[in-house]
Structure formats: structure tokens, C-alpha cells
């Protein structure tokens, strides 16, 4: 097998190899072009556009031209206590909802890879909310959680006290979390189930021989072997929740008493309802920066764990 191999120091084949490599690069570029072009057109151009727009100031509407304003948009945003509250609220919201969703999704996924009867049915049931359009599930939840709606009817029938849900500043954001998780848990569970099924059975057998209990097996085998899908789910879930919008827009409009005004909703309202595209662009830039910070943090944490 090794007898007739060309040695690399001979000039003729080297040139040919270089030419071949160039051709390879050329075709590589050709096949990658659609992706690269889309990446530039759909990601980089809008991002640069948003950053540059955030440095301008314009009268609402599209006719009167914008003027350069430097960092004025950012200064006025940070000078506004309401906006600062919105940032804090968005971060707190994400610090609660992301770990919660992933923890529940992980527990459900672990449960659903066990040999339990009708496992396919349970998995499907949990996945069904994902297939319902978000708008539809928001309308359904809005009706269900109406103060005079069916959920309160059930609570009353069981002898409990009816809850205000979306009409209370103390409960509205929690209700949004419930709706987002109702959809999200089934979705993220699916990735984790496939990740769990990819863990070789031998590792569990070895653990059994070493007399590791279920908790120890979970921590020392399942979690480390699940790192890749877990990282993906964590990052994708974080992004999804930072840009969560539809339930807020449809059900609370940011209220009551601004309790559900998240940054994404605020950016939409500023851009489209109020017509302040430049201020809205500044909010989007800040939202992206905060989101990137958390995503990078997650990459770092999970990678370091892997290396140690």
C-alpha cells in the first residue's frame, strides 16, 4: 500500500497538487457562495445598517432626511429610567426562563428515553405545542387565563382563589414565561432526546459495573456526553427568549404597569408604533450586544468544563 507513494519534494507533482488545491478552493468558493452571499446580505448588511442608523436622528416618517447625531440616541436611552428598567427586566427574565426551560426539557428528555409504556405518545403530546402557530397558542392562552376564563373557573371549582394573571403586574411576566415554556420545552426536549440516544450504551454498562447510582451516572456520564447538544440548546434557547415578542404584543402590550415590556417589544414599539426608526435601531443594537454577551459566556463556560 505504501510502496509507490510520490514523495513530496519532487517539483512536478507539487505544482499539480497546488493547481489542484486552487481548483478545489475555487469550487469550494462556488459552492459556498450562496451561503456567504446570504450571510452578507441577510446578516452583516442589516447589522451594519442598524449600527449606522442608531447614530442618526430623524423625524418619524420617511420623507425628512436623517441627520448624524453620534451617540445621542444611546445617551437618551440610558438617561431614561424606564428604559433601564426594561434592560434589567429583560436580563432577569432570561436568567429565569432559560435555565428553567432547559432543566425541565432535560428532565423530560431523560424520562422519555427510559423504557416507559407509550413513550412515543407522551413525546408527541409534549411536542404538539411546537406545531401550533405561536399566534394561535397565544390567543388560546389569553382566553384561558382571562380573569373570568376557564382556568379561574377550575381554580374556583377546586376551592381556590381566582387569580388576576395578565391583569396583575406581579403575575403577567410569569404568565408569559409559562406560555413560552409550554412551547419551548417540547421543542428543546427533542434535541436532547436525540443527544441522549447517541450516548453509547457501554458507558452506562461500565457505570453499572462500577456500581454508580442513577444520580452519579447522570452527573458523570449523561451530562458530559450531552455537552454538545446542551450547548446548542442553551444558546438557541437564549437567543429565542431574548427576541421573544409575540406573546407580549398580543396579550399584554407591555403592561400592566410596564411589567412585561421586554427589550424586543420595546424596540418594535419604538420603531414601528412610534415611527422612531433610529432610536429603535439603537435599542436593537443594545439588545444584540447583551444577547451576544450571554451567548459568549455560555460558550466559554461549557468549553472550559470540557477542557478541565
Amino acid at each position: 500500500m505504501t510502496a509507490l507513494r510520490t514523495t513530496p519534494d519532487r517539483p512536478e507533482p507539487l505544482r499539480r497538487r497546488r493547481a489542484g488545491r486552487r481548483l478545489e478552493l475555487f469550487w469550494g468558493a462556488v459552492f459556498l457562495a450562496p451561503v456567504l452571499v446570504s450571510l452578507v446580505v441577510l446578516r452583516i448588511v442589516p447589522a451594519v445598517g442598524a449600527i449606522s442608523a442608531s447614530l442618526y436622528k430623524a423625524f418619524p416618517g420617511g420623507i425628512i432626511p436623517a441627520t448624524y447625531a453620534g451617540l445621542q440616541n444611546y445617551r437618551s436611552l440610558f438617561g431614561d429610567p424606564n428604559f433601564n428598567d426594561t434592560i434589567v427586566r429583560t436580563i432577569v427574565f432570561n436568567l429565569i426562563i432559560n435555565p428553567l426551560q432547559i432543566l425541565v426539557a432535560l428532565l423530560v428528555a431523560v424520562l422519555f428515553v427510559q423504557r416507559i409504556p407509550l413513550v412515543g405518545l407522551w413525546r408527541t403530546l409534549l411536542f404538539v405545542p411546537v406545531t401550533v402557530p405561536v399566534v394561535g397558542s397565544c390567543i388560546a392562552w389569553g382566553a384561558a387565563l382571562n380573569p373570568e376564563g376557564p382556568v379561574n373557573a377550575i381554580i374556583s371549582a377546586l376551592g381556590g382563589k381566582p387569580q388576576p394573571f395578565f391583569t396583575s403586574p406581579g403575575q403577567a411576566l410569569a404568565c408569559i414565561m409559562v406560555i413560552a415554556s409550554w412551547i419551548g420545552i417540547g421543542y428543546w426536549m427533542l434535541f436532547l432526546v436525540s443527544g441522549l440516544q447517541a450516548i453509547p450504551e457501554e458507558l452506562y454498562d461500565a457505570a453499572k459495573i462500577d456500581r454508580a447510582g442513577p444520580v452519579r451516572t447522570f452527573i458523570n456520564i449523561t451530562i458530559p456526553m450531552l455537552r454538545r447538544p446542551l450547548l446548542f440548546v442553551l444558546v438557541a434557547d437564549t437567543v429565542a427568549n431574548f427576541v421573544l415578542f409575540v406573546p407580549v404584543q398580543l396579550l399584554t402590550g407591555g403592561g400592566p404597569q410596564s411589567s412585561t415590556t421586554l427589550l424586543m417589544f420595546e424596540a418594535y414599539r419604538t420603531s414601528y408604533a412610534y415611527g422612531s426608526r433610529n432610536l429603535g435601531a439603537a435599542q436593537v443594537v443594545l439588545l444584540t450586544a447583551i444577547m451576544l454577551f450571554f451567548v459568549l459566556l455560555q460558550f466559554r463556560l461549557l468549553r472550559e468544563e470540557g477542557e478541565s
Partner: protein
Amino acid sequence: MTLSTQPLTRRRFISAAAAIGSTTLLVTACGGGGGATSAPSAGGWTIPTTDPTATINVLSHLGLKTDHMQDVVDAFEKAHPTIKVNFETVPFDSLASTIDARVANKDGSPDVYWADQPRISALAARGEAEDLTSAFSSYKSTFAPTAYDAGIYQDKLWALPIANSTQLLYYNKTLLKKAGLADPSASTDQRMTWEQLITDAKKAKDAGAQYGFLFGQFDRYYQLEPLAVQLGGSPGASGNGNLTPDFASDAWVKALTWYGSIFADGTAPKGLASEQTDPAFLGGRAAYMVEGPWLLPQLKTSKVDWGVAPQPVFAGGKPATPTGSWSLAMNPFSKQKEAAAIFLRWMAIDDGGGGYIKYLPSPELAASVEGKKVYFAKDVFSTPQGQDAAKIIDFETANTAVNRVSTIGYIEFETIMNQMYADVRNGADPKTSVDKSTAQLKTAWQKYQ
């Protein structure tokens, strides 16, 4: 049913919801910028005596079929055979952004569009409306004063009103009789007080009515602004260009406190959306309701034994009622301004009070004095209660109507005000809400300073 503050229909709601989903992605993609050419200066056109041959594009939230605008368009084309109307409909919720985008294209289409009256100042300031002063200011006396004024920004006329609105107190005679309550007087001299109304509404509720009292549109500035004005409050903003929030006053806090109290004591329901109020009254479940004249045709076909009275006033306050509806504005980049002007005049003025009122099959309160007569001659006013309603509507539109505040920052204003009303309805402290909303609005209006 053309008022901007009308409850959302399901169709509107779903299309809006669908639009929201798709626009989310675009937030990052839209920057400021925009071309440098400014709108052509006003003038350069007059209303011609002979019709030009032209096709004009008209943009509205009303449908040709669903809202019977085809009847109106047909009547116009019959009266002006050389001018064709290309009528386009967009959902109510995307009308404002569509106007923004289409006018900014500067290709002159649409030539005429439906303008929500409180947004006219903003449209004018944004350069999206043509100055109509020289062509139409001579028709001022044709219109109800508040309706004409709704088109004024910086002493110039930017839009012509085609419709108007007001509010009346409807009551369910059967439910009142059950509670031993006398019918409120239909005379505008013997207006009920809000205090009396709530006392009676509570009695009616105790006697079996599901709801004591309903506003047609809970939590909306259009409906609730007159409460504070009755107590001597401002319309909500004042100062140069009405860009200073002005609702942190005793009158506003008092009005909001009353508003919060009717939900706290259960006279009015907390969980009822504005879309559900008309069906509640028409289904005989509410004793009293303050709502617009658009309820009249539906009442005529319902089984409810109803009566009508003027909207109440606070004890010691002076009567004030909601008003306002839609106007028509012209695109400053239109290439068919003369034909567009003929269309505007026909819709709002010609044919004894405007073709819009005359040829629209469903009755709609006119903005013009002549048009009101056409309106009151419609079938819904033939009954005794209908005649009471006609008298009240005529009086209120001429004497007690208060416009929504005219400001280029109306959109921010209305959004924040409606949220404030909703918060108070849900039990927030009125004083705290007023202060918080004032701060919020100050920030939102910073860009205009």
C-alpha cells in the same frame, strides 16, 4: 364602523397578528436615512371647473365589498365619468405604516388616503399630506366645528373630514324596571351625573343584571378623555405644539380615581375586552352602556327594549363628549391633484353633505352640517328612541364635543394613555400611574423637542 378607536374585529386582529410575526425579523433591517428631496410646495393647483381625465389611487382601511365602499365609488364615477377610482384596502392596523412607506416612495400613489383625525398633525409635520388651505378653507362653515378643526395643523388645513362620532348613554328598560329604576331623561338639559349612574347601575346589578355599566371602549383615550375635561382638566397635553404632557392634574387624578372605582366595586367588569361590550348590551346583559351611534342599527334588530339619554357628566362639572372620526388627505407627491381634489370635495361636501354619507348604505354620522340631515333621515332614526338619539347626537356634536388632542406626537400619546387607563382599571394607584405615564411620555416626546 369606521372610527379609529373602534374595537378590533377578528379579521383585523388576525391579520395584524400575522403581520407582527413577519415584521419582527425586519426590525434590524430598517434604519433611518431616506431621500433628500422635500415635498413639493403647496399650491400650483386649484379645483378645476371641468373634470380632467384621470385615474386616482385611493387608500383606505374600508373594503369595497365588506364595508360597501363599492356603492360610494360607483356613485362618484357616475357623477364624474372621466375620473376612475382605483380603490385599495389595507387592514386598519397597517394603514398608518402603509401611508408612511407609500408616500415616502414619492411616486404619487396613493393620491388620496384615509387619515385618522388625531394623526393629521403628524402626517402634516412628516410631509405626508398636501396643504388644502387655499382650495378648501372656504368650505369651513360646511362642517361641524370640531370636525373641521381636526384637519388643522399650524393654522393650515391638511385634511377634510368625511365622518364624525359622538357617544350616548343607552339603557336596558327591562333591567331598569326590574330594579325599580326610572328611565334617564333624554333631554340634554337633564343630564344624569356619573355618580347617580353608578349608584343606579349597582342597584340594577343587584337586581340581576350581569353588568351594571359598560363603556363601549374600555381603556381608550377617545372614550375617556372627556371625563377629565368635564372636571376642568386639559385634553392631556398642552404647550407649544401640544408636546408637553399635561395630565398630572387634580382633574385627571379625580377622573381616573372614579374610573378605577367602577371596576373595584364591580359595577363594571374588569375582564371584558372592548370587542365584547356591544354583544353584551345587545344580548340584554348590561343595564347601562355609553357607546357611539353605531349601536343604533344593531339595537333596531335586537330584542332589547332600550332607551337612550345623553352621556352623563360629573356633579359640578361641565358636559363634554367624545368626537372625531376619519378625514381624507391628499398625497403631496400626487400627479393627479386636481382630480384628487374633485374626489375630496365630492366625498366631503358635494351632493348635500358629501357623497360618502349619502351613498354608504350603513348609516354613518356626517362631519358636515348638511350631511347630518341626510344621516338623520335614515331609517334607524324613525322610531321614538331613534328620534331621541337624533336630537342628542345633533346637540352633542355642535355643543359638547371635545377633540382628541392635536399633536404631532399623538401616536406615542395615545399608546401611553391607553396603557395608563388599563393599569388603573386593573387596580393601579391613579396618582402613581399618572406620574409614571407622564415620565414615559416625556421620554417618548424628546425627539420632537
